[in-house]
């Protein structure tokens, strides 16, 4: 252990108050300690001081040159005497404000930032009503309205540089700069191009930090700050778990602002900032229960609908047994809903046929890591793996688009010197920041991992001590990877052998290096094996159970971690307590006062074929849209059509809902209290911002009511009560309750009791399963490979602007303005060969069907490979994806299928 020298402190006087702070503290921070606020315009607490606005002047008694220093940059020293409000200081601040006002369009009544403007606030505070200067102003500039979400008025810019610094240093995009110099200095995209011509991705972080009305959200025109209240909650999009303040006027959400959450630290992506609220107030929300009569949905009362649901399910259960029923839960909804849903299925339906969409994204992670490490979740925290690391191994993950705020933090890590190695068939955005890109052929992750391990072992870079003390199964692994020389692997992956060697060295030699992976590893017929390969790698070099290391799957949906934790799984009760374990079944029987079906249930991917076979007769779908999200759509349709009874609980009329017998209106994240668990196992609060619309009810209350009507009485007053029950039943949640969750950092499970602060890093000292298990896994090719008829290898994934089925993002106009149709990425070479130009309409077919979409020609994919996003109903890629499964996690192989492409000549 290194012995830390005790922090030196200094004592100084600020406005007659004594304060002692660590050496190196700025005067600005020291003043905050004694509750003195010093005005700032350019300061951003996440970044080093900029010292450019000169608003924060304070006087140091006896200091050089009049003693004025900027509080944001000057360090506190022993014996300093500081004045933050004397005449000299106030005069200097007035001078700065006067200068700024002399080149600022003063248009407060018309300005969206009225009431939300630091220049305005300080001018009032310092008694300035206008400028005393008469000189030149910047030439009249056109307001740039070109971005769909915000406007830029250069004449209101005070050149504080917050926007450009956020864009460069935090978002890592670097779209805008403070160009030119002197009085002509101007903040703009390069060459003064319009915003929509630049490579701006509309994250809006510049808008969030702008202290004036220069950069304002278009939506901000509709409210004045003082008319609103702000509710902090968790973003409903990806699994990053960003904290966001919803801006509420009346009963309407009018905007969103980043909050200082542990995962996002005041950043948001375009979805969080601009697309997380419009759908809530969308006119096409379902507001009343609907029952299908003669093929038409007609409005019904809750009582009618619930009676019908309970009676139907009960009748099916009585006729065919509980295992003829199934439920799909919603990994976008809160933990509490998921818990009650699975409880309803297990107790009232009397089956373990309950699952959630993790099945089709990260079930391989849950299974793979549980087997090798003992727990199937991200081992470290987002902050930990992006703040102080020497290298990052990013495999099959495109965080820039799928987890944008994590993507930004990875770019920050690279700016701070981390070496990034990207293993991905596509030239994803982070390749620009990478030291090395291993552009492997799709479906070859296991081979790649074996190759990396081969190099690590042969070059003596394995952590022998770690392996000896903490793992088992090494000898078998070593023997197996011996065959995977860089040359052999290079051939399989279609990359250079040297690149494998170089990547292995970078990863193994780094002091701190996390593996970060995503669906590019899991969504394969060898997904679980791919995941295990990741834990093999990390254990081989002892990079697990330590800061800045670990195996880190990025979970896709906001609460997919939670839905799994809550036991929406045919294999696991809440908390990954196994259905196969008799003691566990007894425990839950006792707790819930009923007998439970001891048989392991079917996965969602097994339920659909079972419905086609007629084995599943009744299905309750909570907030999922399998027609759009599951592979091989026609087979999903067939399954749904074949059901005797289908209930869908939803916010909107989805494609799946159209097949329902009863539709129940659900409520959105903004209308409920509860919790989400993000990808780093962090349980965070979801807070109600507005009242639900129409007759829509609390979702868990609906499940409890259905269960009650089916003879399993259940009632909860609040989400908080449900969490208390969860804490009783899940050892890893034992210390979690709503009161503790008021802490802005939330709580990371395992959190076993009231005194447990939670677990940022797992497997420290010991793996959850005791010893870490190496699994010797030979490479197997994907199940469907290109051939003459279907010559292209297609993979699927997300894009930045949309989220899954677009139920939320598709209801934000600006998002659709940027992206409103499906597309297929094709390499230049193939496009040439096929006679296809960028933007052309094309037909894409596989053995399962064909769709029409538009070509996006470029070099993101390599030749012979193509890529499609899965967000769009027009050209729904899942009409053609392959519903073959991984044998362990039953996860579909979304990432590889063979397709043919032909131009459509209109």
């Amino acid at each position, binding site marked *: 252990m290194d012995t830390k020298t005790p922090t030196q402190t200094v004592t100084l006087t600020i406005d007659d108050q004594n304060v002692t702070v660590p050496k190196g503290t700025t005067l600005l921070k020291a003043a905050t300690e004694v509750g003195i606020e010093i005005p700032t315009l350019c300061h951003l607490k996440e970044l080093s001081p900029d010292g450019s606005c000169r608003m924060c002047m304070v006087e140091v008694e006896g200091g050089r040159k009049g003693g004025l220093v900027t509080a944001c940059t000057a360090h506190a020293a022993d014996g300093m005497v500081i004045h933050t409000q004397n005449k000299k200081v106030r005069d200097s601040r007035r001078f700065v404000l006067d200068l700024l006002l002399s080149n600022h369009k003063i248009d407060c009544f018309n300005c969206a930032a009225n009431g939300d403007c630091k220049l305005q606030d300080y001018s009032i505070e310092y008694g300035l009503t206008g400028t005393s200067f008469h000189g030149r102003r910047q030439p009249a500039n056109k307001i740039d309205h070109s971005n769909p979400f915000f406007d830029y008025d250069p004449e209101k810019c005070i050149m504080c540089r917050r926007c450009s610094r956020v864009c*460069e240093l935090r978002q890592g995009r670097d779209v805008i700069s403070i160009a*030119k110099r002197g009085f002509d200095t101007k903040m703009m995209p390069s*060459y003064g191009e319009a915003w929509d011509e630049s490579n701006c991705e509309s994250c809006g972080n510049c808008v969030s930090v702008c202290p004036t009305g220069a950069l304002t959200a278009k939506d901000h025109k509709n409210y004045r700050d003082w008319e609103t209240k702000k509710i902090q909650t968790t973003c409903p999009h990806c699994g990053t778990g960003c904290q966001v303040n919803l801006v509420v006027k009346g009963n309407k959400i009018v905007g969103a602002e980043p909050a200082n959450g542990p995962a996002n630290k005041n950043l948001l992506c375009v979805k969080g900032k601009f697309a997380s609220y419009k759908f809530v107030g969308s006119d096409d929300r379902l507001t009343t229960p609907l029952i299908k009569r003669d093929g038409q949905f007609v409005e019904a009362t809750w009582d009618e609908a619930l009676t019908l649901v309970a009676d139907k399910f009960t009748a099916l259960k009585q006729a065919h047994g509980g295992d003829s029923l199934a439920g799909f839960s919603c990994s976008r909804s809160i933990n509490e809903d998921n818990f009650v849903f699975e409880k309803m299925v297990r107790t009232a339906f009397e089956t373990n046929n309950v699952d959630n969409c993790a099945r089709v994204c990260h079930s391989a992670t849950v299974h793979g890591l549980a087997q090798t490490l003992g727990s199937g979740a991200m081992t470290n925290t987002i902050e930990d793996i992006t703040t102080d690391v020497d290298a990052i191994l990013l495999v099959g993950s495109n965080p820039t688009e799928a987890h944008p705020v994590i993507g930004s933090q990875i770019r920050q890590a690279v700016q701070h010197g981390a070496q990034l190695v990207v293993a991905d068939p596509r030239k994803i955005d982070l390749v620009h920041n990478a030291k090395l890109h291993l552009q492997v052929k799709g479906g070859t992750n296991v081979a790649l991992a074996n190759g990396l391990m081969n190099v690590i072992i042969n070059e003596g870079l394995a952590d022998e001590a770690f392996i000896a003390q903490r793992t088992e199964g090494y000898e078998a692994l070593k023997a197996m990877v011996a065959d995977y020389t860089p040359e052999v692997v290079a051939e399989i992956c279609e990359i250079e052998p040297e690149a494998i060697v170089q990547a292995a060295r970078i990863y193994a030699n780094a002091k701190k290096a996390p593996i970060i992976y995503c669906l590019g590893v899991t969504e394969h017929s060898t997904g679980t094996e791919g995941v295990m390969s990741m834990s093999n790698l990390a254990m081989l070099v002892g990079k697990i159970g330590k800061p800045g290391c670990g195996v880190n799957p990025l979970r896709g949906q906001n609460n997919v971690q939670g839905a799994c934790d809550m036991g929406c799984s045919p294999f696991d009760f809440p908390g990954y307590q196994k259905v196969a374990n008799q003691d566990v079944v007894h425990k839950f029987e006792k707790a819930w006062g009923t007998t439970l079906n001891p048989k392991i249930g079917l996965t969602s991917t097994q339920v659909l074929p079972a419905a086609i076979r007629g084995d599943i007769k009744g299905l309750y779908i909570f907030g999922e849209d399998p027609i759009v999200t599951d592979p091989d759509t026609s087979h999903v349709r067939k399954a749904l059509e074949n059901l005797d009874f289908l209930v869908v609980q939803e916010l909107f009329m989805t494609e799946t809902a159209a097949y329902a017998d009863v539709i129940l209106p659900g409520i959105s994240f903004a209308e409920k209290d509860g919790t989400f668990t993000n990808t780093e196992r962090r349980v965070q609060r979801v807070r109600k911002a507005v009242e639900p619309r129409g007759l829509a009810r609390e979702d868990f209350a609906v499940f409890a009511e259905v269960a009650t009507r089916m003879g399993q009485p259940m009632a909860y007053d609040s989400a908080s009560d449900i969490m208390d029950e969860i804490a009783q039943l899940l050892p890893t949640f034992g210390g979690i309750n709503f009161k503790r969750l008021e802490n802005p950092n939330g709580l990371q499970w395992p959190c076993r009791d009231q005194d447990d602060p939670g677990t940022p890093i797992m497997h420290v000292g010991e793996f959850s399963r005791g010893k870490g298990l190496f699994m010797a896994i030979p490479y197997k090719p994907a199940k469907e490979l290109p051939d003459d008829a279907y010559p292209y290898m297609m993979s699927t994934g997300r894009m930045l602007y949309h989220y899954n089925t677009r139920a939320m993002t598709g209801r934000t106009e600006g998002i659709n303005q940027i992206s409103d149709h499906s597309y297929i990425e094709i390499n230049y070479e193939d496009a040439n060969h096929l006679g296809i130009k960028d933007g052309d309409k094309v037909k894409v077919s596989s053995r399962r069907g064909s769709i029409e979409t538009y070509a996006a020609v470029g070099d993101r994919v390599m030749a012979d490979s193509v890529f499609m996003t899965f967000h769009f109903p027009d050209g729904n890629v899942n009409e053609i994806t392959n519903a073959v499964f991984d044998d362990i996690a039953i996860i579909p192989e979304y990432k590889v299928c063979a397709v043919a492409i032909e131009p459509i000549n209109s």
Partner: protein
Amino acid sequence: MATLPVEEKIAIINHYDANPEQALNILVDLQFASADGYIDQETAQLVADYLGMTETRIYEIISFYAILKEQPQARYVLKICNSSPCHFSGERAVSTGLKQILDVNENETTADGMFMYHGIPCVGACAQAPFVKIKERVFANLTFEKLEALIVDLRAGRYPEL
């Protein structure tokens, strides 16, 4: 800068090992090598890609440093020092002289695209004022007659290196 083939641009960048420390050298060389005397957005992007920087940073540099231009320039840009040592040593005579000879205002290009003149701060030739500087060459101790002769010579292509 469409005038400069991309291979030549890349050759200039590689001459400096595509090193960000040499960004200014690279940009000035690129600018001087092109007939229209400026760095266009496409070239900025090219430099950015080779130097592992963003176009935004390259643009910021171009817009910041006075020698670098983001707009097409005349064939010959005559720079006149207007810092006080020169300003009070005949600078104004040179600018009014050029206005008379070329019949354009400061910062305007002559109709034939050949000439443009503008003031710049001290270039360290204070002892030779009044002068004009074209690229790296100083034409010192000018009189109106010398200025006229210089323009004639430039039109005649007497200074091929410029």
